[in-house]
């Protein structure tokens, strides 16, 4: 069964159409880049998959389950913003994830935190912006989920942190799960992707594998992206 499936998915905000007629299937075991310029509907799609928005029309499902309480068990979501409560200590954050998610691998998370030199007593509030983002990513990737939805995981971080984030993703995801990474920084993620989906003004304009693009067009996905979205 598809890890993520959309059928004729539309989302309008008032009169503005954020997504129009998106049909998409993402299979388990694939790492998929959801690529498009700002405002192309990437975040809207991810929010719909998380049940944070309701579709105007069409359907979306995760492993055959409609977004909601039951799909949340299967999805590990990294929001664009840092959403972990700042009053918590790292240890309390581990408690929180462990309490709510049965697939949370606490020991893996602890190891990654200690690798970064974050003591369990440190409060999120006391961490730098970059460390907070890393801590959140560690929580998300420590789950053995069926679908990972990572919204702009490498936006606004320095190159070293970017490398850390990408290696944390590929080093920790459940190989039977699908990973969706939304970003506009294609050159950086290209190497870790199996497939790409180009979104433009709410529509899917290209669906291909990275190898296919490189083999058939003889150019990187980044170069193709620049060509497709030339201003």
């Amino acid at each position, binding site marked *: 069964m598809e890890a993520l499936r959309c059928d004729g998915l539309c989302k309008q905000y008032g009169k503005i159409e954020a997504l129009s007629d998106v049909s998409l299937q993402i299979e388990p075991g694939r790492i998929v880049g959801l690529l498009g310029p700002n405002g192309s509907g990437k975040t809207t799609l991810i929010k719909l998959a998380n*049940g*944070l928005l*309701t579709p105007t029309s069409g359907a979306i499902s995760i492993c055959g389950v409609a977004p909601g309480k039951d799909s*949340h068990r299967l999805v590990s*979501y990294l*929001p664009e*913003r840092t959403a972990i409560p700042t009053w918590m200590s790292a240890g*309390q954050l581990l408690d929180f994830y462990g309490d709510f998610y049965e697939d949370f691998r606490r020991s893996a998370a602890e190891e990654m935190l200690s690798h970064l030199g974050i003591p369990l007593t440190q409060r999120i509030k006391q961490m730098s912006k970059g460390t907070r983002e890393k801590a959140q990513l560690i929580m998300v990737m420590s789950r053995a989920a069926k679908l990972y939805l990572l919204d702009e995981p490498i936006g606004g971080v320095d190159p070293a942190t970017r490398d850390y984030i990408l290696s944390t993703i590929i080093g920790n995801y459940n190989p039977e799960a699908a990973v969706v990474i939304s970003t506009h920084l294609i050159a950086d993620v290209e190497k870790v992707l199996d497939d790409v989906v180009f979104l433009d003004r709410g529509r899917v304009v290209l669906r291909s594998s990275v190898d296919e693009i490189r083999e058939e067009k003889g150019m990187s996905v980044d170069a193709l992206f620049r060509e497709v979205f030339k201003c």
Partner: protein
Amino acid sequence: MLRKLMKHEFRATARVMGPLYLVLIITALGTNLSVRGMADSGNLFLNLLGAMVAVAFTVAILGVCLMSFALMIQRFHHNLLRDEGYLMFTLPVSVHQQVWSKIIVSAVWFFLTGAAVMLSLMMISLDVGVIQGFFRGLRAFFQAITAYYALNGTAILLELLVLFFVGCAALCLQFYAAMAVGNSFANHKTALSVVFFFVFQFATQFISSLLLSGLDTPGMAQFLANLDFQLRGMAAIHAGIALMTLLTAIDGAVFYVITVYFLKNRLNLE
């Protein structure tokens, strides 16, 4: 899962309320000492210190009351409608559980705040005997009404507790509904939340006055006059509490439906 939500909700709130209760108790003890000794000591410094402790105690009472109230609003707004909402609304729990965890935890803090304030007020009076006396008096009171009306006095206490809880829930839900509606808009979220709170307040008052004027019609008067039952003593009190609880519950239920609907279908996290 509700239990787990409440556990973490208590964790988030206890770190604020706990220290405040401690300050309350310490200033109450201080005031007790000042009443006993410092104020009459004739020593200017002790007089001044005593007065300051008494002022601090008053501020502390005000502080815990305001804080338990502000925390009710802040937790809902911050935890569900701002950035943390991304985390909370993607947990494997239902929106109902989210709202109930917030209501229950707030009600518990309201109750504990009331209890802490009463305890501290007893503490400033001269000695431990007063506190013992209070509880002894309370027991005697219930024993007396139980004996007199042949009804269980503790039943009344329980009913009042239920009314208190329902009242707290209804109060919280009016704020929650206003915030849920206000934050469903793209802009001016906070201002609109305030506006909707007053809209709800006005609507509640309007409807209840409509109901009251509905009671004040000849037909209703006739109906009531023809009713052939009588309530006496405790039975009347029971009925009164039950009616009040019911009305408050209906009020709360309306806001509950609004809150859940907007959180489920009109959530608009930035």
